[in-house]
């Protein structure tokens, strides 16, 4: 009888010790469970820009923003009477930064004008966070569509040894 009464306690002790050993062993590899968490992925900062053609503002022009991180996030806006356009910042929550594999993030801005496609901005990275230099450049983009497409090397404030490469017709000097 005595044994019977003690048995639940013994069982509980056994369970507790299993639980403790599981907890201890999982602490060793805590980052294994990072994939359960969701992370912020900064797809695009707020963007402001002006589009001109031979110095004249291009009005009512559709500007496309194509953001890719595992899937595409598309939106567009129209330039106003002075050729100005803007986009709000865009972030998502994702489990992917916690996985063992990398996911590329791509930012593309473009316009179609007089049956021609112009690339305003192209940038790609494996980082999920924002890049301060690019956030700064996107606060005022000056895009003269008659300019040739060019690749700019820009300083990377977060990872100084890895300069950014941004390609497009907008002047980034």
């Amino acid at each position, binding site marked *: 009888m005595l044994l019977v009464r003690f048995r639940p306690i013994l069982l509980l002790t056994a369970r507790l010790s299993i639980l403790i050993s599981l907890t201890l062993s999982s602490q060793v590899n805590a980052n294994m469970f990072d*994939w359960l968490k969701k992370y912020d992925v900064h797809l695009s900062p707020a963007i402001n820009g002006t589009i001109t053609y031979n110095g004249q503002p291009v009005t009512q022009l559709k500007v496309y923003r194509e953001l890719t991180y595992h899937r595409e996030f598309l939106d567009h806006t129209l330039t106003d009477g002075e050729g100005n356009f803007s986009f709000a910042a865009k972030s998502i929550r994702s489990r992917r930064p916690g996985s*063992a*594999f990398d996911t590329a993030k791509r930012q593309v801005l473009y316009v179609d004008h007089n049956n021609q496609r112009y690339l305003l901005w192209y940038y790609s990275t*494996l980082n999920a966070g924002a890049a301060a230099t690019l956030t700064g450049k996107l606060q005022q983009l000056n895009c003269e569509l008659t300019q040739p497409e060019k*690749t700019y090397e820009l300083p990377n404030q977060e990872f100084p*040894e890895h300069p950014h490469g941004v*390609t497009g017709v907008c002047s980034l000097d």
Partner: protein
Amino acid sequence: MATLTPKLAVQLASLAYEIKEPSSSGLYRFGKSAPDVDRAFQFDLTNGPIQGISGGILARMLKRSSGFAMVGKGKAGYQGDHVIAIRGTASLADGITDAHIGLTGGDNNSLIHAGFNKTFHSMKPALENALSPLLSRSSNGTVHCVGHSLGGALAHITADWVKRRFKNQVFLYTFGAPRVGLDGFAIKTSTNIDRIFRCTHAADPVPMVPLWPFVHAPYQGQEVLLAPGQGISFNAHKMAMEASPGYLNTANNNSWANLQTQSGINHSTVRLHYENRHQASFSGYWADKISSGLITLLKDAGYYSAVMAQAAIGTGLTFYDMLARTLEAVAKASGKLAEQTRGLLGHMLVFARQVVTTVTELSFNFIRWVFDKTLAALYRSARDAISSVM
């Protein structure tokens, strides 16, 4: 003749991820986001990236293909050279973390992982089309093959094929790549490919799989250890600058001579004693040590060649079923071998972080169960981490 610098190789490997998701505008500027790559190579995207099909049965049934490889032409210091950058894929990960590994005869008549070979063959016609016009006519430049993760495995098979097909000088650069084939494949490709730079982080689990009898190339050669460390961390597999340590950070160097190399595991003689089993832990060091213990046991018992031969011809049994049957027979042969088997299984249970690590019997069923637990410890978490984001 020049090799890619570590910096250039790792950036090319990371840029290959850019082509995974198609762009609905069709505006790719491959290589342009990394100024170093942009100065050394140019990529023609008129026909889009080279497509391939990977993944499980469902993906193959749906013939879901996505951009896998890019071919670039060298300029400046790399004038006349070409680069093939191949990306990894989470969906192929099922292949390396599957205990029921399938083997198949590769193009060079040696045994390789069936999943890698299948993916390579799905992109081979497109590679042939892209490379033939560039390499067929008296091109004597070097072909650099780069890849991270499963892209490294595909780059390895690709490099071997390019060498046999076009006879150019071929260099291979891999980052966190898994083992691709058995010793025959490793030996043949080590000779065939002119230079192999196999870069790892000590805590990256992917180069630890698939387990023996898969081996790395260069066969019994050097690996470039970019970050030392203990234990196993799935973060250690990533490339991103944000990751810790991140291959983009650790390989950011202008010379291979500056980087640390170490000899690949030469399976040394290891006899594991049952009473010492608690010294084992869940780490890359013990994964190798246990593999060595298994090989030593099979050699001591005179079964090693037979097991390798059976693995090579492929039996109806899965490899680990066959291995468990063999160990059951080994344990019956003598008291000494039974004790050595017990030592091996005890270490496996501690490695797999089992609560109970006593070895009570040496039956097929028990041995098979220990194998399952050991493989699961190394494979399961990786698979969960991967499938959670699919």
